[in-house]
């Protein structure tokens, strides 16, 4: 009975979301205040019913109601209670429901904080968000109903995929979705602006924190996924360029571009059409990611679980949302475009260069991800594009961006000022070269490690140079507004990430060794003594657990316990044992028994690997920090062109702009 209530709640939410889409938009078109006024209550109503459906599904998991097919497939009696929560989003149907719930949380927040926006614009924004929710709810109800019954109910369920039974993965999907879905706000703003044919800089300013927060969450989600792959897959890799990872990385790249383009539109009124286009791209890529992951269209030969009906639905939805948005952009962008011309060496120009690089990088990732499909379409045989393609092109594209990065904050809006460039360049490059020499003296050899040290120092020193300049020039108390502090954090994060990515790649020592109890492997400067394998038991798994004592120059460092867990259904999951450190991780994972107590053991030394995630987290902090800036709060009734310290363009009449 209770699951049927969940289904009913979903149907009601679908109806409300349909109304939330139609009524306010028609109201804005007909200038009908009563119709526009429905938006708020419809948003709240839809949220309540989606939350109810989600709570009911969670309840079904907690009480182990195996008559619900989705519960029976993703849980069993032995599953610990905390994983029963995360099992709600452990597979397709539930994660879709989570997607809608998070979309509703964002929509609710926009409805709550956006009351000061002009009425028509506000109504259109909520209407667009309603349309997105409608599409996903319809998708859920028609192809992926989480409440479908399984009669007769089995005595026990199957299991939550053991790969997902990891604390890191409890939070990974919600955080990632917060990012994906968060771009829907910038998207809704863009569409509302195009529908209305006008765009105030103040509206873009107000949408900035939403984009920053979404991007921060997406950074965190990607970091969590990468960290999970590292600790759980047993290979010690942190990024594989597989379609699912790429699906989250493309919106991140475009989101990074959007964060900066919005700053230009906010501060200078420029890049207006481009900002709208990026907002459409960022959300479209989030939808595309959903499509790629769920339709099975890409992994055609390798994925057999996908349901073609789902693929067709998402493709149709994608075509309507993205195609409709891009068509709207093509037809109406001229009404909102415009802005001041750029000076060649101004901050806008550097931001634009960064934007182009990020966008082209996203397009490159998209091309590489879709290439196998192109191969099939033109009968070129099965081609897949691997890490070398991505790695090479990505480094190539990011080089100009990294080189320009310290200089964008140092440049001035609208005006060229190359004097500061020259002063900064000598110091930044000097410091970078110095760091390279220090690294060389400390024992770094080869092109890549030195490149990692110098490039990272270049970025961090460049950011520090700006911070110092600002300290000297701005009056106390107003030196680092939160928006700027966020920029500094994120840019330092880029430097830290570069160090981590390049140094881990070039300095890692990875050995697969066969060890009998008592034998020792020497990896890097460490001795790994294998003590043998015993058995241990967890809440719903049995594990073979190895003991490896690590020492350096005879003094003990740590004892590691890598595991191979066997879950009730016979699935085996490796659990690497990691000794984390700021400068290096020691990583041991268990392979297979070789007889006589000997085991194949993977022993890795991964220098600076944590810097990768530290960099990503700094970028996240940057996004959140910038979003908290008071400047972004809606202070007055927008719509009246506001006299502001930074020049903001009022919406120009179409004739002047076309």
């Amino acid at each position, binding site marked *: 009975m209770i699951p049927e209530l969940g289904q009913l709640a979903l149907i009601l939410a679908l109806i409300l979301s349909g109304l939330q889409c139609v009524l306010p938009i028609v109201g804005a078109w007909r200038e009908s205040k009563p119709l526009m006024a429905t938006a708020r209550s419809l948003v709240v109503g839809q949220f309540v019913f989606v939350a109810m459906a989600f709570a009911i599904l969670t309840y079904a998991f907690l009480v182990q109601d195996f008559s619900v097919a989705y519960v029976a497939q993703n849980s069993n009696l032995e599953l610990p209670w905390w994983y029963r929560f995360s099992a709600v989003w452990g597979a397709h149907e539930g994660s879709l429901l989570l997607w809608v719930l998070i979309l509703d949380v964002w929509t609710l927040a926009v409805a709550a904080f956006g009351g000061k926006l002009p009425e028509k614009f506000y109504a259109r924004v909520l209407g667009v968000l309603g349309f997105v929710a409608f599409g996903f709810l319809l998708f859920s109800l028609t192809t992926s109903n989480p409440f479908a019954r399984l009669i007769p109910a089995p005595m026990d369920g199957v299991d939550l995929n053991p790969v997902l039974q990891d604390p890191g993965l409890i939070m990974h999907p919600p955080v990632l979705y917060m990012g994906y879905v968060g771009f829907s706000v910038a998207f809704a703003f863009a569409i509302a602006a195009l529908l209305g044919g006008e765009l105030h800089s103040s509206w873009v300013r107000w949408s900035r924190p939403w984009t920053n927060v979404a991007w921060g969450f997406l950074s965190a989600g990607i970091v969590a996924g990468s960290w999970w792959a590292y600790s759980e897959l047993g290979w010690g890799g942190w990024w594989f360029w597989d379609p699912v990872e790429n699906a989250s990385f493309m919106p991140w790249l475009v989101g990074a571009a959007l964060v900066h383009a919005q700053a230009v539109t906010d501060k200078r009124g420029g890049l207006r059409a481009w900002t709208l286009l990026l907002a459409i791209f960022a959300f479209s890529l989030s939808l595309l990611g959903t499509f790629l992951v769920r339709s099975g269209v890409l992994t055609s030969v390798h994925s057999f679980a996908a349901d073609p009906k789902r693929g067709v639905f998402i*493709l149709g939805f994608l075509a309507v949302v993205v195609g409709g948005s891009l068509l709207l952009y093509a037809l109406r962008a001229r009404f909102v475009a415009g802005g001041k011309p750029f000076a060649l060496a101004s901050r806008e120009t550097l931001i634009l260069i960064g934007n182009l690089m990020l966008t082209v990088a996203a397009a490159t990732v998209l091309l590489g991800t879709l290439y196998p499909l192109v191969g099939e379409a033109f009968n070129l045989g099965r081609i897949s594009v691997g890490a070398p393609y991505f790695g090479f092109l990505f480094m190539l594209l990011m080089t100009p961006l990294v080189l320009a990065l310290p200089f964008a904050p140092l440049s001035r809006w609208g005006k060229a000022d190359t004097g500061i460039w020259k002063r900064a360049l000598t110091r930044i490059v000097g410091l970078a070269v110095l760091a390279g020499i220090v690294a060389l003296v400390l024992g770094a050899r080869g092109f890549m490690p030195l490149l990692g040290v110098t490039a990272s120092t270049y970025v961090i020193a460049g950011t520090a140079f700006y911070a110092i300049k600002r300290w000297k020039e701005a009056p106390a108390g107003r030196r680092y507004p939160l928006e700027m502090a966020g920029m500094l954090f994120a840019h330092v994060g880029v430097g830290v990430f570069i160090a981590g990515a390049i140094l881990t790649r070039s300095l890692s020592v990875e050995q697969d060794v066969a060890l009998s109890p008592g034998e020792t492997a020497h990896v890097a400067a460490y001795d790994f003594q294998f003590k043998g394998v015993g058995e241990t038991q967890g809440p719903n798994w049995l594990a073979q657990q190895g003991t490896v004592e690590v020492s350096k120059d005879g003094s003990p460092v740590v004892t590691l316990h890598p595991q191979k867990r066997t879950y009730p259904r*016979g699935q085996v999951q490796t659990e690497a044992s990691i000794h984390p450190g700021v400068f290096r991780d020691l990583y041991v994972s268990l392979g297979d028994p070789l007889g006589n107590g000997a085991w194949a053991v993977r022993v890795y030394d991964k220098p600076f690997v944590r810097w990768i995630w530290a960099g990503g987290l700094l970028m996240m902090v940057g996004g959140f920090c910038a979003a908290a800036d008071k400047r972004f709060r809606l202070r007055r009734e927008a719509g009246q062109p506001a006299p502001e310290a930074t020049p903001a363009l009022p919406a120009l009449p179409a004739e002047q702009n076309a």
Partner: protein
Amino acid sequence: MNARLIPFAVFVLIVALFGFGIVWNNYHDPRYVPSPLIGKAAPAFDLPRLEDPAQHVRKADLLGKPYLINVFASWCFACGQEHPVLMAYSKKFGVPLIGYDYKDQAADAKAWLDEHGNPYHEVLADVSGATAIDFGVYGAPETFLVDGQGVIRYKHIGPLTPDVIARELDPAIKAVQGAAR
């Protein structure tokens, strides 16, 4: 032409590509491709063993008793899904399960088997994939049942699941064993 139409035009191309992908998957769903090889003699092969490439295994070496050939690769995602099933069932088939490592590096395949366990009686390595063409291998994983006379009796494309094993593979094995007796 309005340059702002370009993103839309590119997107239309991408949608066309996806539409093609879905249609192609529907019509080419490998599960419904009947293998022309069923009822025909398995192609002759001569492949090195994964563990010891100096030793070769020929089709003739295996004649006399039925066996299963399971095409897999360490790069193949679906093989990872299938693997626990093989681990659980390989001893229960009643016929030897021979691994066919398809277009794979030996080191990768060994590491993969170390990682996930080795359900195979024996593993053959087809690094170039040349012999796989004779078998009509379409993509990993695939599973062939070959009888004592060296004739292919059953083929499954895609991961074996407990359901497929119960409904299709086990009866086919029983039939082959019954015929042999």
